């Protein structure tokens, strides 16, 4: 475990994240243009989706794939309920704010997922290539449940909002690339591997540098707006999510690597899709609570400590 944690903490990926975080906390003027951040994010979505789809084309569809997606949907919908209970019990958040925060923890962070995949690759643990489809499936259900919790059981997600949420840019690229990878298979993957496979890890490092800067900004904002109870929630909630994830993974029958990824998905909190959806559907929830918590607390925790922990936990049940 110690070894795993050290090797993760000393990987270029995590070090670049820490560099960005430290620069941001030291108030360096370092900044990555929005367009570059979006471009890298687009690249990562395309690459991860395509590789996942090509993997499925190579290994075929099996029962576990379907079960994993169902498990993901169920987890994404039920984790917010757990989070909501904890928040209304242990913090002074209003009902609406608690529901908003809860929705974030049911949904997922793709970058955390990518970092976990990369850590598995480095340690040589294999995982199911369709896990990226599970990730995509987990993005939205939490939002619907979160709104339902906020409205005291009365969902009010209009059709317009639903389309805005379901067709948000990154989901479209992720799922679309997955489909294209599936259709064109390993042949297709080979033809663009020099773009989406070889430089992938390097781009991820640069993106994590950027995410470090952004997370540092979130942390600085959070120091003002978050109570210590909330900050604690931002750290123990991922662990609870991970435990739910490991249980589901064992029921479904995922491999060791797949289990670690499922745990990571459950442990991670959204900071792109859910905030945007909530600003439309639940404007009375305060972004100054959910954004710093997800981005400034949970995200750094997962990248540095969470991921090696989940990999270690998954390895205990071979």
């Amino acid at each position, binding site marked *: 475990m110690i070894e795993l944690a050290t090797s993760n903490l000393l990987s270029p990926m995590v070090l670049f994240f820490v560099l960005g975080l430290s620069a941001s906390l030291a108030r360096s003027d370092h*900044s*990555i*243009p*929005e367009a570059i*951040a*979006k471009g890298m*994010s687009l690249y990562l979505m395309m690459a991860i989706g395509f590789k996942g789809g090509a993997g499925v084309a190579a290994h075929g569809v099996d029962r576990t794939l379907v079960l994993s997606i169902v498990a993901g949907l169920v987890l994404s919908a039920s984790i917010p309920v757990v989070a909501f209970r904890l928040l209304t019990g242990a913090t002074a958040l209003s009902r609406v704010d608690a529901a908003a925060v809860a929705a974030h923890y049911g949904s997922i962070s793709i970058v955390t997922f990518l970092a976990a995949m990369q850590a598995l690759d480095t340690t040589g643990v294999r995982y199911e290539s369709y896990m990226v489809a599970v990730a995509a499936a987990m993005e939205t259900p939490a939002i619907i449940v979160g709104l339902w919790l906020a409205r005291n059981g009365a969902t009010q997600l209009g059709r317009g909002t639903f389309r*805005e949420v379901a067709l948000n840019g*990154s989901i479209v690229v992720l799922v679309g690339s997955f489909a294209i990878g599936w259709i064109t298979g390993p042949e297709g993957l080979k033809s663009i591997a020099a773009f989406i496979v070889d430089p992938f890890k390097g781009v991820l490092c640069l993106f994590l540098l*950027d*995410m470090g*800067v*952004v997370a540092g*900004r979130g942390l600085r*904002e959070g120091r003002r*707006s978050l109570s210590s109870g909330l900050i604690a929630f931002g750290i123990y909630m991922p662990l609870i999510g991970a435990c739910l994830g490991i249980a589901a993974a064992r029921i479904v029958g995922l491999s060791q690597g797949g289990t670690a990824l499922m745990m990571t998905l459950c442990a991670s909190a959204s*900071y*792109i*899709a859910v*905030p*945007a*959806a*909530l*600003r*439309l559907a639940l*404007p*009375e929830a*305060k*972004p*100054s609570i959910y*954004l710093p918590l997800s981005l400034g607390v949970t995200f750094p925790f997962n990248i540095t400590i969470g991921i090696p922990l989940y990999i270690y936990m998954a390895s205990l049940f071979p």
Partner: protein
Amino acid sequence: MKTHPKKRIEIMVEAPLVARVLALLDEQNVSGYTVLPAIAGRGRSGSWHRDGLVGQAGAVVQIFCVVDDSRVDEVLEPLFKLVSRQIGIVCVSDVQVIRPDHF
């Protein structure tokens, strides 16, 4: 040159809401509008900065729309209803235009 008085409505609104504001302006049959980027800001609900961001949450965008005096209230009322619970501000100011028929 002869110029004609009009009103410039300026809306600072959080990015996820832009599509709705534009749809509202379309419904109100304004003759046109323009969306301008912003890079950073601060308001009652905290400060924000676009650098390095991927998502839309936490960004604010500026929309302006030149309309005839007579139409200001018609446009402002539904607009205010739409954005009143959201992050942002709305200002109105006087401008002069050359081609009054354009607006």
